[in-house]
């Protein structure tokens, strides 16, 4: 047994291929046999992934979900930003450059609307919870954009570490909410074409959430959503600690 563990720990990434492969297999079986294909297998697999992430965090108290268990460290590498971004870029092979250029304006406008919307609703919620200083409000609003914009903004404005942690938590909840709700809402909100996926990526912005949500909705839409979503965090890091902070500072000096 010890030898087996040793081999797995030494070959973490290879073991991750096996684990994820089995997880997909189980999810496909559940999707087809029990749910009669009403929920796609990929959506179930992503949801199981989230549960495993919770379980991993519960056991270890770490920050990387299941990947904090030494046995499953390869999963963290497989699902880390390098492979994630590499695979997202590869999805562009099936996308049409023509459609992306043509929807460029819609993508850009949806990015601006998305950042403003998430930031200010985040600020309103923080207000409702009793925060009154511009730096904390701005940091939580930025966290409502993504879990990267939050800490970047908080660090720039000198927010307390408690508020920064809260902004990361907010961004994580957003990612998970987008992952789970996208396939459920897709049909009702008209998310069914490359153009609409580009607008969706711009409004929602969390690349992980958009990518996972679209993958569970229709994998063909992933590149269109991802191409706009990847600009969201950068734009958020630009706007939140500057323009938005100045605006909040005028109201809460």
């Amino acid at each position, binding site marked *: 047994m010890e030898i087996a563990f040793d081999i797995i720990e030494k070959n973490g990434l290879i073991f991750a291929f096996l684990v994820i*492969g089995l*997880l*997909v297999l189980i999810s496909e079986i559940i999707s087809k046999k029990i749910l009669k294909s009403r929920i796609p297998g*990929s959506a179930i*697999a*992503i949801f199981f*992934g*989230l549960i495993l992430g*919770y379980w991993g*965090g519960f056991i270890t108290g770490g920050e990387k979900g299941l*990947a904090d268990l030494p046995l499953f460290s390869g*999963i*963290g590498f*497989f*699902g*880390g930003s390098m*492979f*994630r*971004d*590499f*695979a*997202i*870029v*590869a*999805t562009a*092979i099936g996308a*049409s*450059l023509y459609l992306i250029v043509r929807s460029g304006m*819609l993508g850009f406008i*949806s990015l601006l*609307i998305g950042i403003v919307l998430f930031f200010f*609703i*985040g600020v309103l*919620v923080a207000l409702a*919870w009793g925060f009154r200083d511009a730096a904390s409000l701005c940091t*939580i609003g930025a*966290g*409502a954009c993504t879990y990267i914009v939050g800490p*970047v903004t908080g660090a720039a404005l000198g927010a307390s570490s408690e508020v920064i*942690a809260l902004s*990361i*938590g*907010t961004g*994580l*909840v957003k*990612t*998970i*909410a987008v992952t789970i*709700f996208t396939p459920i809402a897709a049909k009702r*909100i008209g998310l069914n*074409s490359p*153009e*609409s996926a580009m*607008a*969706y990526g711009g*409004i929602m912005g969390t*690349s992980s959430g958009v990518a996972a949500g679209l*993958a569970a909705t229709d994998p063909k839409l992933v590149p269109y959503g991802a191409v706009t979503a990847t*600009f969201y965090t*950068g734009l958020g890091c630009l706007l939140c600690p500057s323009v938005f902070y100045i605006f909040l500072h005028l109201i809460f000096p």
Partner: protein
Amino acid sequence: MNIYGLAVLALSFLVGQWMGEFLGSLIGIYANVGGVGFAMIILMFMKEWLVKNSLMSFEMEAGIDFWNKLYIPVVIAMAASLNVKSAINSGTLAIAAGTLPVLVSFWVFPLLLKKFNPQVDGDSL
């Protein structure tokens, strides 16, 4: 050769990341601005050029397509390594501020689409 395709993908990825970092430092923030987006656009241009000059072989495209297909498994692994526990534990404020705007967006999104009225040619995918 599959590796040619993989190399094209790697080149697009690295150049795109570099452009994202460069743009980030240009506007004075320590973040990558759209590096992945740039990489995707570069890949699409390169593919177009390769196809036009009949340099894109089936195997070469398969090298890129392998990663395209691996996309969902990568996302599943990502979900399993997210800090789900702290998201749930960070309290009602984080849950409200993380969920409410998503729900509002579901309401705004169809309005935005209607305003722009994108030509419906999604079926041509």
